[in-house]
């Protein structure tokens, strides 16, 4: 099980604020060995670039930069930590479970770890696209493989 109480809104809130205030793996690099995707949602201001280095089917490095709201920023930061050193298949499984959570379906709590803080984001349906923007971006990265 997760190392924190997912029914405690204070903790979930702190996770979002922590990643929003100090986003992880946020930097732009100039290295053509990384696959780059640009996610700019049509309906909002989120404008996020994801750069991923995959070696032998393993996500070795993942960076991102750009501008987003609290939800997209925190979610992208958490995603970057979740998938690092995972195989493409493992990452796809994480994405699948994350989507399931957003759709209020069954999901593996351990796999999603801190990303569970978005369990209630669908209370604001317009913001689901903010929460899953980087996961959609990672899928696009995999399409380029």
């Amino acid at each position, binding site marked *: 099980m997760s190392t924190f109480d997912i029914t405690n809104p204070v903790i979930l809130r702190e996770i979002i604020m922590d990643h929003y205030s100090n986003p992880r793996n946020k930097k732009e690099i100039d290295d053509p060995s990384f696959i780059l995707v640009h996610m700019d949602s049509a309906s909002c*201001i989120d404008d996020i670039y994801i750069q991923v280095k995959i070696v032998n089917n393993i996500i070795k490095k993942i960076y991102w930069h750009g501008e987003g709201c609290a939800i997209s920023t925190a979610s992208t930061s958490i995603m970057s930590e979740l998938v690092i050193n995972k195989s493409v298949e493992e990452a796809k499984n994480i994405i699948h479970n994350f989507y399931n959570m957003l759709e209020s379906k069954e999901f593996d709590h351990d796999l999603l770890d801190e990303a569970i803080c978005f369990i209630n984001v669908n209370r604001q349906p317009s913001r689901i696209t903010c929460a899953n923007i980087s996961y959609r971006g990672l899928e696009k990265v995999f399409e380029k493989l």
Partner: protein
Amino acid sequence: MLDVKDIRKDFPMYSLHNNEYEAKPLHYLDNAATSFKPSVVINKINEYYNNYSANTKRSDYSLAYKIDQEFEEARKIVASFINANIDEVAFTSGATMSLNEIAYSLLYELKEGDEIILSYNEHASNVLPWYNIAKMKRCKIVFAPSDKKGVITPNNLSKVITKITKVVSLASVTNVLGVRQPIKELVKITHNNNALFVCDGAQEAPHHKIDVKDTNVDFLALSSHKMVGPTGVGLLYVKKEVQNKIWPFIYGGEMNSRFDSSLSVSLKEFPFSFEAGTQNIAGILGFAEACKYLNNIGLEEIEKHEKSLKTYAIKQLKEMKNIILYNDFNDSGIITFNVKDIHAQDVATYLSSNNVFIRSGNHCAKLLPEVLNVNSTCRASLYLYNDYSDIDALVSSLKKSGDFLDVYF
């Protein structure tokens, strides 16, 4: 001040939402995006479908005659709303379509090297059609600089306008900052340089009396849905004197007189040449009804009302240290702001949880960040049915907006 309690009785959105079954009253502050519709407009639309549903301009039976009369009566009402002559206004699907029609109608008038002047404040619908025309005809797009308050001063237009300028296309009131441009002076400068002036009046028409004879604009576009009328209807004004410069963009039934297999086509005169196909008849009748409704209340009264609400809001927002205001200096009904350290979209979502509905983002004016130095803003926009309680709800919610993540837990 307008008697808002009375006015709200005209709008079913209020009677349906502000009642004992709703936990929180509705605070709709996104009028620059679209407005609510009064019963008279809704009833007029229903009346067409229920009582005299027939096509216009093509049938000889009495039912069709009745709707032909209604249709041209609607044109008269809408034309007089902007002080135009009846043969100067065509119906479109909205300001976006009007602006596209204007741009494409000048396709034969524009040639390689001609310049089109726009500004950084413009809505996408007054930028992108021109970008496309510029690409097709190899014209050049030039941006008129605005001053610190977003105003295109006559002096600034004079700096960029030249002998090769063919078109100046500007919003009379801008959609993010609500800046009122000195249109009459800008038109004079444009005409002195033998160029055409296109006015995007979408944000002005709902709140301020437009007088095309006074400003002397050559083209004007506006949307019905922002001025208590139905969606999917708009107006395209083309001054009589420049109608010989334009060529229709959309072709079809009832815009031509005759055509034959030798490719010879003769067109009807404006405005009919710009109304191909069956029109949005119900919407057009509703649009005219909306003009009548606004005339009855009085645009001056509406403007005064919005101004007092804005002054009331600004006074309180200025006292809040975490609020950044971008247009407190102008008297439009638009309040553009940000909450320090909180993304605009997060603010809008939080306010929505308190039933305060505002817009966040770049509001389709994607060039504005280049001068405003901020990518997204919150926009609260007022109209005749807003009152102090709406402002109080906005301010008190903003005071608690530090808890903006609460909506997710």
